[in-house]
């Protein structure tokens, strides 16, 4: 008897409660959605500012010509980055950091071989930025994807999300860090596109890897402003056939490759 009465009362009460719960859930999620949309829109507005004749904010990128890079050149790139930033992978240990690495490719069908350097691709829509819980992994206004190590809690989720395995986690106490590259135990790091050089020299900056392999006019690793149609990199991208890695993912990498 009691249960019957309960059932009769239950339904309208349950309906009312479901409505209330839905309203509550919407109220809880709405600020987050609003924040995201405003943040996203703000970011887009900033990037598009001054789009009329010349973009006000650059987007830095690299064009790597694998045809012009020998294996020794790629080794030199890696070595240059190591000296510039103070990391090393000499131990060959799986916990070693690696900002840029030499990759050997062998075509499965034809056996043709290529060597190329690979680093953070500085995507326009970086998955690592999407998944970082604290926002430590972020994309600067000029397109460089960085880790704000002051905010990084070392959860390594960005490392799981990166399609290019660009990120490294620092597994041990470090000493003798260089002034231009603060790095420490428990945080995540990756190629910074030599941001300290870019902040100093702007469009004339040359990242360490590029500096190691560029000889005079022949620039095997070309750095420049992708937003500027008159920059050397934009012109070369227009006139040569280039590829981006895992273009199917739609993350719009800032690094392009020639000869792949």
């Amino acid at each position, binding site marked *: 008897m009691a249960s019957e009465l309960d059932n009769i009362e239950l339904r309208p009460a349950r309906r009312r409660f479901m409505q209330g719960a839905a309203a509550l859930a919407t109220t809880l999620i709405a600020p987050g959605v609003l924040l995201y949309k405003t943040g996203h829109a703000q970011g887009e507005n900033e990037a598009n500012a001054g789009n009329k004749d010349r973009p006000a904010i650059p987007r830095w990128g690299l064009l790597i010509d694998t045809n012009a890079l020998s294996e020794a050149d790629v080794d030199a790139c890696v070595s240059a980055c190591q*000296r*510039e930033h*103070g990391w090393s992978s000499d131990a060959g240990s799986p916990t070693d950091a690696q900002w840029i690495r*030499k990759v050997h490719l062998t075509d499965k069908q034809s056996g043709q071989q290529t060597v190329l350097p690979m680093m953070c691709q500085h995507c326009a829509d970086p998955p690592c930025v999407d998944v970082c819980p604290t926002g430590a992994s972020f994309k600067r206004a000029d397109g460089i994807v*960085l880790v704000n*190590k002051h905010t990084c809690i070392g959860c390594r989720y960005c490392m799981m999300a990166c399609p290019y395995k660009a990120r490294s986690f620092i597994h041990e106490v470090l000493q003798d860090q260089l*002034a231009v590259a603060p790095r*420490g*135990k428990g945080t995540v790091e990756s190629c910074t596109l030599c941001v300290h050089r870019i*902040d100093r020299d702007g469009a004339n900056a040359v990242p360490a890897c590029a500096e190691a392999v560029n000889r005079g006019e022949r620039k095997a690793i070309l750095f420049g402003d992708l937003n500027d149609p008159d920059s050397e990199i934009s012109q070369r991208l227009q006139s040569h056939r280039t590829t981006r890695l895992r273009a199917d993912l739609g993350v719009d990498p800032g690094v392009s490759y020639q000869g792949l």
Partner: protein
Amino acid sequence: MRYLALSALLGWFACLPAAAAEVESSGFGAVVIPQPTKPGNASACVEPVDIMRRDHMKFLLHQRDATVLEGERDSKYSLVGCMDCHNATEPTETVVRYPDPQHFCAGCHLYASVKIDCFECHADRSLKQLQQGRLDLPLENLPLEDQPGSALLSLQTFHQQLGTSGGE
């Protein structure tokens, strides 16, 4: 009984400062009140001393965001700038590193028991010293044999090891 316990507790708290002072002066596990060394080369810090004492952390916290998020590197509040003055020992002297109480920052921070984690990542000495160790010179000026520290790798060593471990 309750009042006895309460007064004992209050008495214990009251005695703490006196005990601390005694510990200091007695030299037993003595804590030295810091006298940070003032660098010889500069006339004054970027802000007056009393402001720096109170607010240096605010400047640093604000500046670090400006540097990382916006790329501002030439501000007077840059950490590299601090170290350039405050830990700029001559190359002939021994370098003072962070946890040593002689280090400018460590002196006060150890005394005040305020743990800082800046130097877990940042270089704790001046650019000049780093350059003395040749760590910051551009690539073409860097002699192969002059490579101190575990963070660096000479091209030679790199190639050697590449021969033995080249790609798994």
